[in-house]
């Protein structure tokens, strides 16, 4: 079964068809929530099959990480918008963002080369998975921030805060797992590289958001704006630094 799945995936048309079908389902998600589940199922199946093909989690290189981020957005968007009225109006912009990341992943060639031994460890995998889960949550928070400015409502601002707090928790845990990995791999839990510095900038930015929100002046629009601005810092930390700067995290 595993071999037949791998040979099926080696045919380049099958993964592409899965991705395109997933995009179509997400577009149809505006009409029926069922299509969102179907699209996510296809994304999960694609990730699972890549994992089987590679014999590890597909979380290395821009193709796999962008796809993972796209799927993570939907994974968290479904439960986090569950209690909202007119749920689809919140879900749809999130699905659009997920589609953008999914299509962007197609620009890059999948990283099919075996990993260097330094990357074959639980700590690395946990570091990456937690980081991308938090990126997904920060993305959702930013989109909700955009919706807040269009539709208003305290409920959206509170939801944005909760999502950022959860993302901050996962991001912090991801940084700590990364530190443990770095200590075991390189003998230090901290490296002075642009990526590490940007990671701290992102972490500090959301720390600022969480503290600022406690003050009256920052509550409401200013804190929602911070929640949106965080998305751009996150995108630069993830893609900008990895693609533009020399770093231990370069793709």
């Amino acid at each position, binding site marked *: 079964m595993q071999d037949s799945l791998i040979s099926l995936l080696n045919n380049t048309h099958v993964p592409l068809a899965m991705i395109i079908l997933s995009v179509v389902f997400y577009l149809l998600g505006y009409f029926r929530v069922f299509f969102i589940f179907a699209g996510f199922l296809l994304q999960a199946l694609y990730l699972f099959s890549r994992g089987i093909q590679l014999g590890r989690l597909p979380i290395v290189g821009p193709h796999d990480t962008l796809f993972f981020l796209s799927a993570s957005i939907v994974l968290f968007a479904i439960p986090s918008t569950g209690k909202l009225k007119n749920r689809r109006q919140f879900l749809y912009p999130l699905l659009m963002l997920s589609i953008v990341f999914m299509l962007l992943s197609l620009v890059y060639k999948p990283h099919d080369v075996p990993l260097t031994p330094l990357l074959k460890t639980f700590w690395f995998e946990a570091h990456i998975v937690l980081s991308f889960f938090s990126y997904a949550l920060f993305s959702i928070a930013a989109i909700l921030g955009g919706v807040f400015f269009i539709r208003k409502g305290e409920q959206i601002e509170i939801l944005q805060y909760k999502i950022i707090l959860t993302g901050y928790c996962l991001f912090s845990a991801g940084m700590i797992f990364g530190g443990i990995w770095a200590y075991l*791999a390189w003998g230090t839990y901290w490296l002075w590289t642009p990526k590490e510095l940007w990671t701290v900038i992102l972490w500090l930015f959301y720390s600022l958001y969480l503290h600022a929100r406690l003050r009256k002046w920052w509550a409401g629009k200013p804190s929602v704006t911070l929640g949106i601005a965080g998305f751009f810092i996150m995108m630069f930390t993830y893609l900008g630094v990895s693609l533009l700067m020399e770093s231990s995290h370069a793709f």
Partner: protein
Amino acid sequence: MNILKNILKIFLSLRTSIWLMLTLLILLFYGAFVMPLKEEFLNLHSEPLFQWLLENPLSITWWIWGAVLVVSLLAANTLLCSIESLIKRRSTRQLLLLIAPQIIHAGFLFLLLAHLLSSHWSFKGTTFVFQGTILQLPNGLDVIFDEIHIDLDRWGFVSGWSANIRYFREGRYVTGDVIQPNDPSFQDGLGMYIKTVQMMPFPAALVEVSREPGAVWALVGGVCFPGGIIILLIMKIIRET
């Protein structure tokens, strides 16, 4: 007395925390763009931070000095705010909701302590070794590299490497170990890491000896910080349901 009171008031203020974080953000933002452009930063990994700061001109290092100052103020601010919060709300019924942010703050302070210790007393040395090489370590131990291995997978890609080592003190055998990627050997406060190997023309390995005095505190902080956030999240969920 009034001046001291005013200083304390400033340090107990959330507004101070926000301004300090904002200042730190700006400094790090500047540093993140400058760092890749200056070659002086290339050897920042090879020596303790404070030693590197003293060896390099202020025109390059000023933003790190600034960040150290702001972080110190932030540490004092965090500590004082936490103490004040515990004293003021000690009679609260929701004890966990009171303690959770303080656990997060304690984690942050432990992480800062870790960086402070490592910035002062860390050590790092890198060298090539061959089979039979004896290295003298700063902790008085000698280490002998007996065998260097490389593993290939079925496609011919390198899947791992390792070296068998033995420690001696004043000529007497202490213990033996195997070092491989992500699996260093720790002995008397020093870590022995194998970075890479080459088998041609003869087996050789790039090894690193390092001491991170802040590692344990970083781990303590690393447990406290997300632990506190998880408690906070759970408490918020319980309060709502």
